């Protein structure tokens, strides 16, 4: 494949790059205790929540920003970011879809996010977050019948304080890392899920995040608790308008899988990646972690195609015996994107198992790194890990890197790690082309095949979307 053909393929449009004009209430940029007080007050939060935020803020102020990742970006001025932006039409929480601002509905329609319950094909309950606020959560009643709580985290703080108090920060403590501390201080909205004992959640739950306002950051916080023997599958999607300046996104996701529970968490991340010259795009700094108790399972699947910078390590602490952790990832970088992503599997319990499958694709002048940790503690008898990280390079100016940390302190543990790096081979291209498949399609097919192991882990609706996303991302990139 020639460089010119590759360039063509990589240059494609960001379809979610439009802006929505809605009247918003946006705080001027800057961060201080007063901003946190204002934000907490605006949300009508109880005092304990405000104190928790202030405590996090104080911790954050003392922490240095991390520099260990394989990422290069100018220092972020946290005082240039606005920490609160809310469409005015959401001031009185809409009780039904009819009350939601039509502009907002149109936005989500344009993005293909179904909010109208009657139009739902597969029955996915959706919570949509626009800048700092949750817009609407669908199928609430149907879920309530099963005892499932699915609402925005702001609502949960009001309506289910005992659950929030107990679990918030239990997986990702306030001072866990720089960006988690920042999020703990200023988190705006996000989703809250509680699945009661023995309940199999009747439908897929989904959150859709959209950054709209300029110069705002999005700091969502998601907390999912699967009580004993329950099951939930949760999907997350993200987009943002095409802007010239960088926008900040620092989220925290906490998963708690109590004994025998199973949580499947899937993400399709398509924040605006910036243009070919690296102008604009989202800085995505995310902390995602789950705790798996006895006999439980947590599975992370992610398709990362967006963001100028991705810093994200969905992890599992395998605390209970016989618990299982999985991580399936496809990370595609193009233009000047930089991704440093991977996972941590911390084996503490006996007979714990983890699987890591990571596929990195880098094109143009992008840098794509896998960074992972597999730690076997001394009491994790018979722990088992299998890791595979493959990289595909498209073009001679991109980079693919692997930094897997493996630490074993138990002689009964078995750990395997393998990694390969290659390009789309001439043989594969030749085979496709001599069968009359045009080059663009051929590369798309080969890339899809490369990612297949991960795509098959996604819920059906998402698998289709992910496949399409890769096609769009690679459009015009191949010859």
């Amino acid at each position, binding site marked *: 494949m020639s460089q010119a053909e590759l360039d063509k393929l990589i240059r494609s449009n960001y379809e979610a790059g439009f802006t929505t004009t809605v009247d918003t209430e946006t705080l001027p940029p800057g961060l201080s205790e007063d901003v946190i007080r204002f934000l907490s007050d605006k949300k009508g939060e109880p005092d304990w929540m405000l104190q928790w935020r202030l405590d996090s803020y104080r911790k954050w102020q003392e922490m240095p920003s991390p520099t*260990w990742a394989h990422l290069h970006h100018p220092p972020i001025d946290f005082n240039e970011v606005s920490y609160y932006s809310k469409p005015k039409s959401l001031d009185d929480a809409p009780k039904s879809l009819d009350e939601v601002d039509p502009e907002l509905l149109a936005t989500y329609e344009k993005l293909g996010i179904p909010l109208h319950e009657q139009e739902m094909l597969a029955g996915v309950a959706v919570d949509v977050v626009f800048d700092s606020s949750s817009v609407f959560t669908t199928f609430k009643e149907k879920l309530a019948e099963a005892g499932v709580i699915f609402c925005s985290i702001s609502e949960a703080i009001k309506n289910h304080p005992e659950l929030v108090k107990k679990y918030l920060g239990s997986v990702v403590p306030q001072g866990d890392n720089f960006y988690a501390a920042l999020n703990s201080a200023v988190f705006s909205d996000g989703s809250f899920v509680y699945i009661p004992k023995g309940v199999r959640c009747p439908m897929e739950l989904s959150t859709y995040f959209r950054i709209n306002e300029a110069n705002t950051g999005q700091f969502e916080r998601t907390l999912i608790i699967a009580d004993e023997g329950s099951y939930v599958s949760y999907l997350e999607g993200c987009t943002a308008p095409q802007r010239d300046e960088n926008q900040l996104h620092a989220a925290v996701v906490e998963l708690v899988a109590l004994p025998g529970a199973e949580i499947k968490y899937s993400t399709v991340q398509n924040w605006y990646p910036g243009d070919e010259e690296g102008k604009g795009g989202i800085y995505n700094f995310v902390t995602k972690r789950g705790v798996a108790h006895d006999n439980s399972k947590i599975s992370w699947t992610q398709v990362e195609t967006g963001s100028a910078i991705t810093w994200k390590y969905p992890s599992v602490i395998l605390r209970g015996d016989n618990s299982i952790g999985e991580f399936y990832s496809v990370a595609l970088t193009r233009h000047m994107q930089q991704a440093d992503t991977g996972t941590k599997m911390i084996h503490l319990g006996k007979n714990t198992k983890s699987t890591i499958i990571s596929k990195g694709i880098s094109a143009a002048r992008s840098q794509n790194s896998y960074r992972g940790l597999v730690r*076997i503690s*001394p009491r994790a008898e018979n722990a088992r890990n299998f890791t595979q990280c493959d*990289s595909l*390079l*498209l*073009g*001679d*100016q*991109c*980079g*693919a*890197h*692997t*930094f*897997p*940390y*493996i*630490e*074993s*302190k*138990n*002689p*009964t*543990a*078995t*750990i*395997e*790690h*393998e*990694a*390969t*790096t*290659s*390009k789309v081979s001439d043989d594969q291209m030749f085979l496709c082309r001599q069968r009359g498949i045009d080059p663009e399609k051929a590369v798309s097919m080969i890339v899809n095949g490369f990612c297949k192991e991960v795509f098959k882990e996604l819920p059906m609706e998402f698998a289709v979307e992910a496949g399409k996303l890769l096609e769009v991302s690679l459009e015009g990139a191949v010859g």
Partner: protein
Amino acid sequence: MTVSANDLALALKTQALASARRLGGEGDALAALEATRFPERKTERWKYTSVQALADGHLNAVAAGDLRQPLPALSESVVTINNGELVTSSLPDGVTLHHNAPAVAGLETPFAVYNSAVARAVVLEVAANTRIEQPIHVQIQAASDAPAHCNPRVIVKLNNGAEATVIEHYHGEGQALTNAVTALITADNAHLTHYRLQGEAASTLHIGTLIIDQQGISQVDSYQLMTGNRLRRNDVHALVGKSGAELTMKGIFVVRDKSHVDNQLCVEHRVPDCQSDQNFKGLAGENGKAVFNGRIHIHEGAKGTNAELSNKNLLLNVGAEINTKPELEIYNDDVKCAHGTTVGQLDATQQFYLQSRGIPAAEAKRMLSLGFVNELLMALPHETVAEWARPWLEAELTHARPAGEGAA
């Protein structure tokens, strides 16, 4: 006495600077030492290795002890360096020994920088188009009853078309710290076979850097066998610098008791069409701790590179620890790179098979452990080295408490 890592880093720097001034260090080398930082608590490259043992003050004195059990000669050509000073040498025609050392590229650790400031290098230069039949046995020995250090520096230079075998052999007694730098420099059409044998006493310390600088289209085959001691740190930096160069590195490390081994390997491909292949096997028993960090770095222009790395480890019992990290850093699409790592234990069915044939459990485990590394032992091209290495390794494995027995 335990001091905080950051205080220790400052103390080590002060000691190293004072020592360098005492030993006549000057100019750029001393300035470089002034600019360097010793490992602190959060220094990534020293994540798994504490230099706490150096709080005993090794850098304050230079080792000057007498050797009780010096190494036997493995060849007719021998160079002996005791406590950092050249003692004797007997070399064949075609090899000259001098002290006119070239600058060494790729030195990174503060200890190597310190070595550069104070060491008087021994340069072994092999004349162009000369084939040296006998291996050159370079004995690097150190002894001291009290904590003290020495700074051996050996540079092996193969000119165009030269072919030689060098056995870099370390021996240490008492509380000596060997702070070594070795550089292997090869010109076009040179072929170097290199052994690095490290079996110093458990009470000693070793911090060493090995530079492989392939300046020409050359082949370097390096075999590195080591046991753990109180602190062993090896930084190996290979610069595959001319198209067509080939590098292989094979190694075995065994840790037991409370011994420690930290291998930090980096193979850098800067030019197109080179090959590198690394294969390391590790065994950790008792309370031993092994660290392996193998990095392959392929620069932007290095198309057509073929680089592989394999690191397989056996964890023999509770209390032992293995930390491994195979890294890839790749900036070119037209390359073939792969690495694989495993950490596991001996196969229970194989043990059962041996025991069912009347072989005691401990013996069966020793046999299987030896079998695990045998592939690499068999690959040693020189009979003399293999004959020396096998019983040495067998003895190490006998000491290592087998899995499941007497484990805490």
